[in-house]
């Protein structure tokens, strides 16, 4: 008998304890959210892993850049000749330059946004995404800035697109050096928004069919939505003073891509596509509304 009975008992005890611990954590997590014991565990784990995640992110960035560069090559078939010539000169420097150029472009977009009128009422905290939820059940990103940098719970977070910046989510948890952002495409996210130009307002939640697009709910059938124009959706505030909105108004969210009506429903069905590509989140800005 090479393995003793004690060892078999120990195996069963270890598995049993681990299963019990997992179920206890799950129950506590469900009941307490990000407060209490589970919140403490989460913040401790974040504090421990944040520096390592940052280092790993920096170390793997060239690989990521190389991957994006290669993926770009596959996609851009019409630029084949130019890329071939570029490939001849390519090597480690080309990959690095490509990565740096993309980063500079993003930072320029951020800078452009910072200097724009839209950002005049905010202070910005630049941040890098160091971790991302590994599946669609929960859409979160982890940033390398925390309360020590001025980040607070419910701060809006934007990412650059074109000449502006679009809302990606809000801070739901923060430690001194890192913070977790719930993306607007997370199924627990709901953002109050209004359609510009126009007066229609509604609640933006991830669409049931495709969580990568948003569905604007509670827009009455009588609300005028002029689909002949380019319609932008921005964050809005409530009409009552009793409930304070989590996000300040006027932050761009996305564009209206479909409006439909049904005779059976008293509401319009409005599909909104976010401005930001959530697959390519690297540099973001945490917005701090300026106090007068």
């Amino acid at each position, binding site marked *: *008998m*090479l*393995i*003793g*009975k004690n060892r*078999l008992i*120990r*195996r069963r005890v*270890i*598995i049993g304890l*681990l*299963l019990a*611990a*997992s*179920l*206890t*954590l*799950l*129950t*506590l*997590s*469900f009941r307490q959210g990000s407060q209490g014991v*589970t919140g403490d*565990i*989460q913040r*401790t*784990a*974040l504090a421990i*892993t944040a520096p*390592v*995640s940052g280092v*790993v992110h920096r170390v*793997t960035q060239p*690989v*990521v850049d190389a*991957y*994006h560069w290669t*993926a770009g090559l596959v996609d851009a078939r019409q630029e084949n000749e130019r890329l071939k010539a570029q490939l001849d000169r390519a090597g480690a420097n080309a990959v690095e330059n490509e990565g740096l150029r993309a980063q500079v472009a993003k930072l320029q977009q951020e800078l452009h946004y910072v200097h724009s009128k839209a950002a005049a009422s905010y202070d910005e905290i630049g941040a890098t995404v*160091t*971790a*991302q*939820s*590994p*599946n*669609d*059940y*929960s*859409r*979160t990103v*982890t940033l390398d800035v925390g309360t020590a940098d001025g980040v607070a719970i419910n701060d809006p977070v934007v990412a650059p697109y074109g000449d502006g910046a679009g809302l990606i989510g809000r801070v*739901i948890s923060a430690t001194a050096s890192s913070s*977790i952002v*719930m993306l607007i495409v997370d*199924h*627990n996210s709901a953002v109050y928004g209004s359609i510009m130009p126009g007066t229609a307002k509604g609640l933006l939640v991830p669409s*049931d069919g495709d*969580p*990568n697009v948003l569905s604007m709910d509670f827009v009455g059938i009588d609300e005028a939505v002029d689909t002949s124009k380019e319609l932008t959706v921005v964050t809005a505030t409530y009409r009552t003073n009793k409930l304070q909105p989590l996000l300040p108004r006027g932050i761009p969210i996305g564009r209206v891509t479909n409006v439909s009506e049904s005779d059976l429903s008293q509401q319009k069905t409005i599909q909104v596509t976010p401005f930001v590509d959530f*697959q390519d989140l*690297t540099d973001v800005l945490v917005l701090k509304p300026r106090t007068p």
Partner: protein
Amino acid sequence: MRMLDALRIVLLAFFAAILQVSAAPQLTPTNSTPDLVLIVVVALALFRGVESAALAGFAAGLLVDAVTGQRLGVSSLLYVVAAWAVASRVDGDDDTLMATGGPARMSSARRLLYAIAATIGVQVSYAVLQWLLGEGLPFRYTIDNVILPVTIMTTIAAALLLPLLRRALPRQTGLDVRRAAPA
């Protein structure tokens, strides 16, 4: 020697969790990523036994959930069950294990099959658990955008990583097990 082995396992699990949430999401065309932690858990279940695999799976799962702000305990639970399921299949029942003294040798293809089966099991269980918690995604979307891509990417990653992990975790013989066991 035993301390060194434990340290190796801790580092493997830790960096698998960190890579899964920091680098992997940027390297995949979809929102889902290969389950690197599960590959390490399966490797540990194959080469080290259920205790190491379950402990590493629990800790790494907790880390992944905590860092990404998900409900704590979901990943840990699934990784512990996966470790137990793979180790049970590999070792046989307790009587077989006591008779043979350790995990049986097997081909690379069979190891990969265990990784694929574990991935499908974990992904389906994850989807069911999320649905039971009221946080599930549409059925068709879950199949097309979560379970299938994760299974394919994890299979590819497992095919590449399992041989490396086998080298990093040399198989313990029955003699090693007896020596390591307390008198």
